[in-house]
């Protein structure tokens, strides 16, 4: 079966999850990725939504992070003070998914403004819980489509920190989590170089050339010496995505 770039993104993101992990889920592709992982190699994944639903097993595709289907049949519902303090700040979230209008060379994410903060060209929604997820989750995975606009050399505003902020590393800044270990795009996977924290090309999707990826980022993208191979979605994965997880193509467009 042939697949779309979006289907591959969901599949690659799903494969980042290990069975039994505790995942902070967002709506959209991250939700699809988590449910795909649960349906395949990670049946014991624990999904936590920042709205306070733990161990959610939604019977429909949730259209909001606070959809009532996330509550019905979940293991626990707690207030948001517990979500941010007892779970996230406590270090109990193993993986967080993040996205954003801009992702820069060090994995910093901007979801606040395009342009100057006080006089923005485009006002974006803001942090929500993203800043603290980026700081506290033991590791994060960024999901974003490649383009020069979306991957500038430096973001206009750092909402959610990546590997380096004004020259200082996460460790120097005292951040508990490891930061964005992978950036899953529609053409390739980027990873942070251990020493510099800079995002480099780590794996190409089938049929994609490295130059296409370089054209989609605003800095001189370096590559790992050996690029990893990305397997296309299996028929099982595709059928799950298309027939079970998002039959109405709410998030699988494109």
């Amino acid at each position, binding site marked *: 079966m042939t697949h779309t770039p979006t289907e591959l993104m969901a599949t690659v993101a799903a494969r980042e999850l290990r069975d039994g992990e505790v995942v902070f889920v967002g709506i959209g592709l991250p939700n699809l990725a988590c449910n795909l992982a649960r349906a395949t190699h990670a049946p014991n994944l624990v999904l936590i939504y920042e709205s306070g639903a733990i161990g959610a097993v939604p019977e429909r595709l949730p259209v909001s992070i606070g959809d009532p289907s996330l509550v019905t049949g979940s293991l626990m519902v707690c207030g*948001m003070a517990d979500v941010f303090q007892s779970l996230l700040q406590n270090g109990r979230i193993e993986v967080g998914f993040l996205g954003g209008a801009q992702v820069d060379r060090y994995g910093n994410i901007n979801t606040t403004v395009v342009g100057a903060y006080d006089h923005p060209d485009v006002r974006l929604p803001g942090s929500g819980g993203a800043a603290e997820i980026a700081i506290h989750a033991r590791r994060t995975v960024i999901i974003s489509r490649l383009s020069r606009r979306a991957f500038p050399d430096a973001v206009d505003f750092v909402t959610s920190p990546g590997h380096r902020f004004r020259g200082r590393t996460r460790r120097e800044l005292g951040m508990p989590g490891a930061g964005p270990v992978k950036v899953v795009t529609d053409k390739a996977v980027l990873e942070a170089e251990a020493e510099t924290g800079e995002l480099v090309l780590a794996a190409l999707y089938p049929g994609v050339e490295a130059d296409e990826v370089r054209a989609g980022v605003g800095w001189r993208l370096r590559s790992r010496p050996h690029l990893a191979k990305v397997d296309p979605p299996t028929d099982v994965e595709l059928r799950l995505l298309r027939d079970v997880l998002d039959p109405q193509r709410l998030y699988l467009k494109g």
Partner: protein
Amino acid sequence: MRDAVAALVRDGDTVVIEGFTHLICFAAGHEIIRQRRRELTLCRLTPDLIYDQMIAAGCARKLVFSWAGNPGAGSLHAFRRAVEGKGPPLELEEYSHFGMVGRLSAGAARLPFWPMRNYMGTDLPAANPRIASIECPYTGERLATVPALNPDVTIVHAQRADADGNTQIWGLLGVQKEAAFASRRVIVVVEELVDQSVIRADPNRTLIPGIAVDAVVVEPWGAHPSYAQGYYDRDNAFYVGWEPVSRDPAALAAYLDEYVYGVRDRREYVERSGGLEQLRAAARVCAGVNYGY
């Protein structure tokens, strides 16, 4: 609702209408618009459609928030026009969700600040000087702080309460409890007013005690187009449909004329909206527990 808002919400007040996607009291927001309250400082983690409407209606001087979008459907365009310099100005005070949760937690505990490990490596403190820091007296670490938020009035929607305001909520809890305890005045709006014996039969379900509540308003469907677990579903079509309305100032004004200024109360809103019955919740009733001894 008319009396509660008239008595308890004043021009210039700092107002919180809380509810994280769940139990957002649109009924109270509409009544505030109808009563033409002005110069309000509106606080909420997720401003949502109701604050977009209140901003468009000219109620707000300032917005204190952490995520301003139309979840899953687009932008809050009245908000964006104000911030992007294409509409009446709006002062902003911006945090993350954790920051807003901390502000209300401090307010509920009547502490002047709340400590957290947060904001290192972000531009948020540069954008908001009220995000400060403190040194731990034991470890010497620096921790971020946010200042307490003690609203003049908080409005909380809930499934049920008794006449004294003892309020029970299930499903997502958001920061409803913290907001109520932090506030000088509290209005609870419920789907159902119940006899106190219903509350007393399951006291662990009570989230806000009556001693913290100034007014109880009964307003079925009061959270539409958001939802009330066990009562009605989220009206996703309304959220999706808000995008073009919000984008066009004339359409937004027409919406307010028809559904806010053009109705006397929530009952008329429900009638005019039509078809809400199809959102009525299915039955998934849990078993009770034994409180005996």
